[in-house]
């Protein structure tokens, strides 16, 4: 259980598995996971606040609060909640 957000799968878990790269390390995901879901499922957070050094794990989950920014290779800065994981995708957190 990650020590930050305790995101928990409750349904729809029978999906094919994918791998992507999160800060250079392999991260598993299920097909259809957003980068936010996959990152938070593994580590409990998706980025570090620039101002208080606290971890963040998304807030609105609908593309409005901008609290889940990550950098995706080839695409630049994106909202993790609005980006579906693709096999081999390379994601960097702040």
């Amino acid at each position, binding site marked *: 259980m990650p*020590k*930050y*957000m*305790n*995101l*928990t*799968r*409750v*349904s*729809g*878990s*029978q*999906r*094919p598995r994918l791998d992507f790269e999160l800060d250079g390390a392999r991260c598993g995901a*299920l*097909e*259809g*996971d*957003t980068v936010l*879901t996959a990152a*938070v*499922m593994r580590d*409990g*957070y998706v980025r570090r*606040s620039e*101002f*208080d050094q*606290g*971890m*963040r*794990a*998304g*807030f*609105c*989950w*609908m*593309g*409005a*609060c*901008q*609290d889940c*920014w990550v950098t995706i290779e080839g*695409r*630049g*800065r*994106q*909202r993790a909640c*609005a*980006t*579906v994981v693709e096999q081999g995708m390379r994601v960097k957190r702040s």
Partner: protein
Amino acid sequence: MTAAVAIIGAGPAGVRAAEVLVRAGVRPRVFDEGLAAGGRIYQRPPGAFKRSAKELYGLEAAKAERVHNIFAKLEKYLDYRPQTLVWDIAGKTLFTLTGGTAYGTETFEQIIIAPGAVDRVMPLPGWTLPGVTTLGGAQIALKTQGVAIGEKVALVGSGPLLWLLAHQYVQAGAPLAALVDTTSFAAKARASAAMMAGDAATTLKGVYYTATLRLKRIPIHEGAVPVAIRGEERPRELLIKDGKGRDVTIACDAVALGWGLKPETRLADIAGVPFDYDEVQQNWIPVREMSGKTAVQGVYLAGDGARIGGADMAELAGARAAWAVLGERGAFVDEDEVNRLERALKKEAAYRDVLDKLFPFPSEILAGLPEETVLCRCEGVSIAGLKRTCAADAVAMTPLEVNRAKAFTRVGMGRCQGRMCGHTASEILARELKCGVREAGRLRAQPPVKPVPLVPVTTEALT
């Protein structure tokens, strides 16, 4: 390329607007930030999920399927642009960003702006911890990703979504630590007759959700005041004062909060639509006629982005706005259908009025928060930061209002552009200035309406 009619948003309002236009032989261009039509209310999980509409939308499954099916039938008759943010409007030109990388410009003759709404939140000590989300966020996590925000979730706020979400978490087998409603049971009991008269079916759904939660013995606190979320790496407990003023500590590992919704109005603002402060909804809303027509030629508004009314009202308003567009274009207008829509809209509006008065934004709780509470979660500015700057620079900032306060404190200037904090900053400012929220001013929108990457752009690309 010019599309005669543009629609922004593919939620219930956008889909119904598109339906009316397509039937009249117009091919609208529909811009949608989502991956697929449905909006946030009827948002679908990505393709790999195999879940029934019943599982996803519960009692609203039939409505969700209807909206999805309408759009599926329409799709070949319209120009659908999913994953596309419209980030600016200049005259009759839209500036777009697709997939977060591809910029474009489009022109239109008439536009129906229906971008929906976001949760109206209030800060609490501890609300920036991982594991704290909006009510809408907790719902989207469950609905589109099959995840619960924790294993012991406390829900805090007021309004229909609070109870619906609690019901959905329980149905999904996600344990709830508590439901904390800032509206009292007595207030709801007093409003029950008016609610039944206004919309019996919807009211009974609320009663059903409440009854199932009580049956499952979910701890429910009504007329309560949230005090703080405590924890180091995630919420450990939620402190409240219950309806009788007693201190209660709720052990939890996640918290979702929200007090109704606020309309997404930035594009309407940039298009030049005038605004008014709606005292009932406690939101700034763009001024429009019941038809959705605004003072700006060719600009129409529908759905929660115009004024909060919920999904059913959005369907009606979307269709109504499309008829208004057809009228402006000199096409045939089915007056009987327009009258039917307007009667239904009036009925929905009356019901909404009862709900809005029953579930007000808890300004007095906001006023009682400790000064060190983070107000702006983008940049970590506290309530004290806003108050102190305003007091210290009151002379320099004359006349002091929310846009000046934003410039001096950066509250509302962060990456969410005031979506999470703007309304609470206005409330706090109004109290400091001893004036109404209306007099404290309205946070003006600036393009881009959401942050977009800065890339070298040639002048040709903009023409």
